[in-house]
């Protein structure tokens, strides 16, 4: 268990091991033989498995994704990569209308074991069309599973589980995590879909986080420990099906909830977690939960705007202080994002309850 591997190479190792074990696995999508398009996550695959099983493609997201769905219907286990989730919108019909529904609307007589891998690639002044994360969209759709690994260990194990699962799985990895390095077993292992990970135990507050913000939540929790606050950090790993039990157990203990998610605020994944807890465990909540999300603003370009757009450990820590009633004035605004035109939730809501 002491082998260290980066997140990017953990994805890569999962692909190598899947493909060597199972002839029905193949890899397609734009950039699978590119030196830069998908980081190091596909390195060595083409040389090892050849042009039949590692298929770079024309710029035709809808056809290629649908073809992967079709191949899955025929019994293969394709993995189709979208080097940015932004481009994957062109394939949304095949994911949402077709892949998600096919098993249901055939009365269970067909199945679609496809893995659609969408990469979140943002920051670096890439601006509005090269920064987006649409995990909430896919989590909304019945018939899909959605995973977002936060660690090298889970990047490997969840990819293996996704490919071996008989359902369409949207696997979302984040370029900001590619260099994260940690213990990754060398063997072929699965991480169960639908099981969250308690990344840190604590009694004062529950931080539920997704993907890169799970790592940031741990950093926040360490800092908060110095202030005497013991935060429990739950890294969701799977967004759908959601491990609500893990969340509720934790909230039952702490009574306080902060949800940190890298998507936009309105109708984002954080809303789902808070709504779930509010409807199912209202009585456990000792204070208003807080969401730490992107503001409802397209990704900006300039670094001065990026600096205030993305959420990090400090915003999570502010959120925790706020939920514990320790916030300085204004901290709540920050952690909640703010009311961009188009939401105005937080300001207006605060006004109204004054």
């Amino acid at each position, binding site marked *: 268990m002491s082998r260290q591997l980066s997140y990017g190479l953990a994805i890569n190792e999962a692909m190598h091991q899947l493909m060597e074990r199972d002839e029905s696995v193949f890899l397609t999508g734009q950039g699978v033989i590119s030196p830069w398009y998908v980081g190091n996550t596909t390195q060595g695959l083409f040389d090892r498995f050849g042009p039949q099983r590692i298929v770079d493609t024309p710029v035709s997201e809808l*056809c290629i994704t649908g073809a992967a*769905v*079709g191949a899955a219907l025929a019994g293969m286990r394709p993995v189709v990569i979208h080097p940015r989730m932004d481009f994957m919108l062109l394939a949304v019909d095949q994911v949402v209308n077709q892949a998600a529904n096919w098993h249901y609307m055939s*009365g269970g*007589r067909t199945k679609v074991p496809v893995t659609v891998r969408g990469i979140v690639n943002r920051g670096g002044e890439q601006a509005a069309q090269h920064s987006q994360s649409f995990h909430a969209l896919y989590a909304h759709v019945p018939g899909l599973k959605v995973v977002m690994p936060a660690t090298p260990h889970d990047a490997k194990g969840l990819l293996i589980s996704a490919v071996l699962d008989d*359902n369409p799985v949207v696997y979302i990895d984040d370029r900001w995590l590619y260099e994260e390095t940690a213990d990754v077993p060398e063997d072929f292992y699965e991480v169960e879909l639908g099981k969250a990970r308690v990344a840190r135990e604590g009694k004062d507050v529950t931080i539920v986080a997704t993907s890169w913000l799970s790592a940031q939540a741990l950093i926040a929790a360490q800092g908060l420990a110095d202030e005497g606050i013991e935060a429990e950090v739950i890294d969701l790993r799977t967004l759908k099906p959601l491990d609500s039990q893990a969340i509720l157990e934790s909230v039952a203990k702490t009574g306080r909830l902060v949800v940190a998610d890298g998507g936009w605020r309105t109708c984002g994944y954080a809303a789902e977690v808070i709504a779930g807890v509010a409807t199912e465990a209202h009585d456990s909540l000792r204070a208003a939960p807080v969401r730490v999300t992107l503001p409802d603003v397209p990704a900006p370009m300039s670094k001065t705007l990026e600096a205030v757009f993305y959420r990090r450990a400090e915003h999570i820590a502010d959120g925790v202080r706020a939920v514990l009633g320790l916030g300085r004035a204004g901290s709540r605004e920050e952690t909640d994002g703010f009311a961009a035109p188009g939401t105005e939730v937080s300001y207006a809501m605060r006004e109204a309850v004054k």
Partner: protein
Amino acid sequence: MKSSVGDARDLPEETLLGLYRVMQLIRRAEEVIADLLEAGEIKCPTHLYIGQEAVAAGVCAALRADDIVFGTHRSHGHYLAKGGDLDGMMAELLGKETGCARGRGGSMHLVAPEVGILGTSPIVAGSLPLAVGTAWASLLRGDGKVSAVFFGDGAVEEGVYHECLNFASLKKLPVVFVCENNFYSSHLILSERQPVDNIHETAGVHDLPGFRIDGNDVVQVFDTAKEAVDRARAGLGPTLIEARTYRWRGHVGPNWDLDKDIRTEQEVRSWMEKDPIKRARESLLGSGVSETDLRQIDYEIEDEITRSVEFARSSPYPDATALADFVLVP
């Protein structure tokens, strides 16, 4: 347009008889379905194929039992021609648990994996990529299967159509693209949607063969499909077939869309004169098959349909408690 092979000169008599049987089954089943629609017994959106039977019959006769087929919103014909079970279809249209999709899909989602029908979808052009994908799977596995996908003249207006032709051609995938050009997409005639009537020519720019054929000539359809299927199976890649035909009924439901200022009765009549079944029947009679033999076939078909309707009617509906079954494979 390919030279007409409307006379069955190269075709064994059994084959043409088989084609006749399939076409007649589709026609009669759909006429009964039209009645059930009018009676309100069938409630799901139902798109009738009457008039186009030669395309499904001809193409599917050129396929092996284990070859794969995808269809559209208008796929009763494809389902039956590929060997889908009539009971399962009738029950599906009535929303019964015994339906081919267990009452979860209806007319627009026919499925019969046991005979290679992996499904049909009413998202226009939505099943083209799926067929490209099953063909891709066949290439990877070397299983020798061919995939065929049926779609309409409207589907070529979806960009994914070209994406599919490009990719299938690039990878030489064993897939046959069957465009049933019935000149209408819903209420709109072709000329209001495309600057020229040249669907078969779209193949050329993607470097695959494209044939324009008389889709009401079942033998020509069969011959062309055979050539395409052979090519695909031999590893030579995809083919596009534009079969020109006509749907007699309206876009959806049992009516004729004649009251709606969309098309003229004269146009409908002129196409009814080109009835593919009548032509096959005449050809068979001409080649020595007796009227009695054909009547026998017709009689069997009536019987089969009557029994299927009975089966469908007497089948149970899905249990309400099972609503969430099949959302995910456990």
